[in-house]
């Protein structure tokens, strides 16, 4: 079947390019027509072909392409769901209109006797009215059951159709030919059939309402995507639908607006609130060259940016896709329920036949009537839906709750494993620490001020690209110190730099560099030792061959690392640090945040082996790292956590991705995972118990002991409520507490 695809094409500069792209697209097997619009940089393709094949063909021709497609229209979906919800309520209402007066009249003894001619006519008319109910309110059950039967399948519709159908056929036989059944069995069950249909439709409507809440996380994410954006084309700013924005277009964003597609800032600067994606409360500063992502909010300035990823390729769309995929997977805990659900309905059918035969053979004079009632009740009370829903509905809410905190869980298996963890291994740089050196402390000598030392050092270091030099320059900028021009700049690799600033000879570097330049550093010995003990890297600054000060630089520990590790300890985790750094630096950091064990000086390629060693000690191990350097260790661990800061994280790299750069995400993920698994167990337990108690009671197992035979209408109510209960229990996960946070 042919379908239409729209692509955005980047890299076309002339009419010749248009011809090349068109030719490349038309050459793809299955393409019926392809036309390229140069002005819009788009291509319209028709054919029986996948979008990816088309994109590959364009790329092979030397251009870039992406699918032009907005996210799903939630509003349309909601309208359709509301229509269905109302239809269910209408069907329930019509069925109740027939069933309830019959039930009440029967209880009050107001209905005519079946054995009188007038009574027989009355009951036959009621039978026809009930048939109308079965067709209007319950027709979908009968059609579903018939279609499933033809496909050798049996489902919930089968049970409802058989249960109510049996009640109606038996009642019609009683009404039409009362003499054919024993006098004690001369009872019609039209009211039961109608009320069961009413209850099940009403239950489905309630379930639908409750299920709407379970997908709120996805709806919230989809809601982040703006529908339009302001595009600059030929010098004009125009508002365009998001579907019409191509690659490499220039877009303007004003304060308070959401960013429409992913791109790179090309003019202006601003702060951007990324909390809706990352959970990170502090706004991110954006300057020229920085990436901005769709769905985040521009807070302060106006800026221009160029689109780099559109449609399904944006970070937001990928997050939505990942959450959707994860919500549809099931952990091992749900497999038993799956196996049971697969054979459930035919098994219930067999039990129903056995129930009928048992009552027929052993029920004496009541036999046929009770056999019908018990068979109908068994069919109606059995609820495969509660079993089938128990796992996926909790996963859906759990994964959604995690996503709202910036925690992306890859699948149900990762979710279940995270709840069983015993040990959490943390990489140091970028995980416990911020991963970026920063000035932490200064000491000055010879009455020189800190600002002066920093200004001199920064003026010289501004020329260098060394990470330590950048830390000095950033510190000077943060204090709004102006940098001075440098003459006679000389860099000595691995040691330091020198040059003339404001006619003064300045040396900036390590101790060896100072000694090589015969600068006396004896006065700094005590300070230097104290700072080195705290794993600080020292930069010496000398003016005119005299030591002016020490600048201590370190990779600062994230402000909430210690508190997050405390939380992990509180839930019984052993915390291990695994790092390539030297033992002394690693221990200095570990002591400050309360890590239990340090494994230092490990090469990246050996990290996986260390994880395996811990696993051999029967530990269930999580590895938390940056997702790129730690990839082998993340893969080896039972659960790999990729920790990022902001939206630049590689989403594909781990079992669980923490969009927010905080270790609290690990504790939150474990808490959500444990709560979700507990919720699944409650649901499964409830569903198994419900069916394994409900079915025997419905079959009449209590009758010989207590004289109790369940009313089929009660069975209908129980069945309708059982799935609502499962969904409501899962909804509780949206509100669970995750424990202490700062």
């Amino acid at each position: 079947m042919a379908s239409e695809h729209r692509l955005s094409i980047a890299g076309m500069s002339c009419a010749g390019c248009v011809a090349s792209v068109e030719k490349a697209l038309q050459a793809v097997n299955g393409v019926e027509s392809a036309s390229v619009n140069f002005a819009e940089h788009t291509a319209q393709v028709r054919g029986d072909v996948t979008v990816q094949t088309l994109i590959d063909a364009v790329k092979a021709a030397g251009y870039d392409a992406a699918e032009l497609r907005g996210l799903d229209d939630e509003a349309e979906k909601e309208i359709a769901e509301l229509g269905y919800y109302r239809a269910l309520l209408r069907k329930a209402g019509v069925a109740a209109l027939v069933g309830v007066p019959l039930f009440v009249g029967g209880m009050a003894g107001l209905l005519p006797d079946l054995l009188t001619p007038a009574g027989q006519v009355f009951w036959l008319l009621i039978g026809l009215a009930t048939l109308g109910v079965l067709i209007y309110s319950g027709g979908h059950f009968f059609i579903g059951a018939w279609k499933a039967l033809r496909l050798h399948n049996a489902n919930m519709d089968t049970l409802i159709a058989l249960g109510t159908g049996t009640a109606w056929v038996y009642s019609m036989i009683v009404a039409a030919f009362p003499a054919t059944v024993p006098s004690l069995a001369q009872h019609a069950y039209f009211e039961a059939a109608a009320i069961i249909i009413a209850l099940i439709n009403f239950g489905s409507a309630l379930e639908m309402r409750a299920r709407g809440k379970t997908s709120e996380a996805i709806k919230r994410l989809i809601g982040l995507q703006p529908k339009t954006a302001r595009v600059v084309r030929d010098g004009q700013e125009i508002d365009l639908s998001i579907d019409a924005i191509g690659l490499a277009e220039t877009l303007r964003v004003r304060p308070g607006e959401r960013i429409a597609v992913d791109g790179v800032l090309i003019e202006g600067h601003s702060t951007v609130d990324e909390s809706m994606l990352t959970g990170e409360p502090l706004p991110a500063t954006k300057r020229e060259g920085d990436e901005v992502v769709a769905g985040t909010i521009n807070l302060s300035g106006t800026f221009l940016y160029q689109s780099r990823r559109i449609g399904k390729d944006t970070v937001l769309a990928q997050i939505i896709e990942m959450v959707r995929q994860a919500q549809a997977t099931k952990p091992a805990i749900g497999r038993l329920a799956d196996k049971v659900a697969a054979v459930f309905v035919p098994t219930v059918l067999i039990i129903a036949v056995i129930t009928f035969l048992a009552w027929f053979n052993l029920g004496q004079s009541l036999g046929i009537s009770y056999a019908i009632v018990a068979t109908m009740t068994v069919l109606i009370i059995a609820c495969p839906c509660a079993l089938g829903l128990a796992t996926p509905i909790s996963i859906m809410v759990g994964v959604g709750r995690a996503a709202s905190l910036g925690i992306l869980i890859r699948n149900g298996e990762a979710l279940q494993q995270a709840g069983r963890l015993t040990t959490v291994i943390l990489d140091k740089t970028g995980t416990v620490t911020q991963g970026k050196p920063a000035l932490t402390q200064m000491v000055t000598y010879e009455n020189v001020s800190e600002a002066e030392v920093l200004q001199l050092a920064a003026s010289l270091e501004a020329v260098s690209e060394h990470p330590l030099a950048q830390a000095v320059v950033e510190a000077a900028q943060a204090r709004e110190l102006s940098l001075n021009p440098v003459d006679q700049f000389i860099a000595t690799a691995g040691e330091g730099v020198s040059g003339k600033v404001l006619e003064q000879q300045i040396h900036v570097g390590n101790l060896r560099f100072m000694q090589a330049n015969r600068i006396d550093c004896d006065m700094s010995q005590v300070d230097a030792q104290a700072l080195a003990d705290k794993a600080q890297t020292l930069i010496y600054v000398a003016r005119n061959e005299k030591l002016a000060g020490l600048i201590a630089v370190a990779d600062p520990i994230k402000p909430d690392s210690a508190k997050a590790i405390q939380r992990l300890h509180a839930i019984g985790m052993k915390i291990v640090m695994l790092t390539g750094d030297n033992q002394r630096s690693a221990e200095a950091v570990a002591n400050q945040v309360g890590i239990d064990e340090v494994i230092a000086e490990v090469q990246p390629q050996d990290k996986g082996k260390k994880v395996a060693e811990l696993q051999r000690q029967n530990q269930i191990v999580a590895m938390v790292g940056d997702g790129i350097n730690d990839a082998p260790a993340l893969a080896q661990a039972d659960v790999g956590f990729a920790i990022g800061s902001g939206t630049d994280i590689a989403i594909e790299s781990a079992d669980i991705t923490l969009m927010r750069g905080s270790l609290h995400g690990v504790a939150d993920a474990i808490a959500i995972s444990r709560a979700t698994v507990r919720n699944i167990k409650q649901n499964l337990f409830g569903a198994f118990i419900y069916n394994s108690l409900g079915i025997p009671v419905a079959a009449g197992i209590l009758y010989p002991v207590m004289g109790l035979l369940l009313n089929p209408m009660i069975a209908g109510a129980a069945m309708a409520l059982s799935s609502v209960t499962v969904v409501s229990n899962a909804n509780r996960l949206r509100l669970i507490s995750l424990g202490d946070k700062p």
Partner: protein
Amino acid sequence: MTPIIVNMLGVSLIALIIYWFWLSTPRKITASETMPIEIRVKDGVYTPSYIETKKGDTIRLRFVREDPSPCAEKVIFNSLNKSLELPLNGSAEIELHPEEVGEIDFTCEMQMYRGKLIVK
């Protein structure tokens, strides 16, 4: 006489249930690499629901959803950890490349809609 007939009917019915739902399979549709298989999602069933393919083939399944029930909105390939969102009155396609011989179930979340991909 009647009880014997009723009991015989009951036992036959049980045998029929076992045969129809567990021992026999519906007609299979064979999927090939060239054309996608269109599966209608309507009235609580996938039609066709039994699809046969060869190991190593890349096949496409296009689900066309006409059923408004929320149960119909997702198709889950549990063993592959894949799922597909189905827009109402629209279609969605999934590409599969089964590399092992066996059976791949596809179901709705509650396992009431059921289908099978048989890889030979």
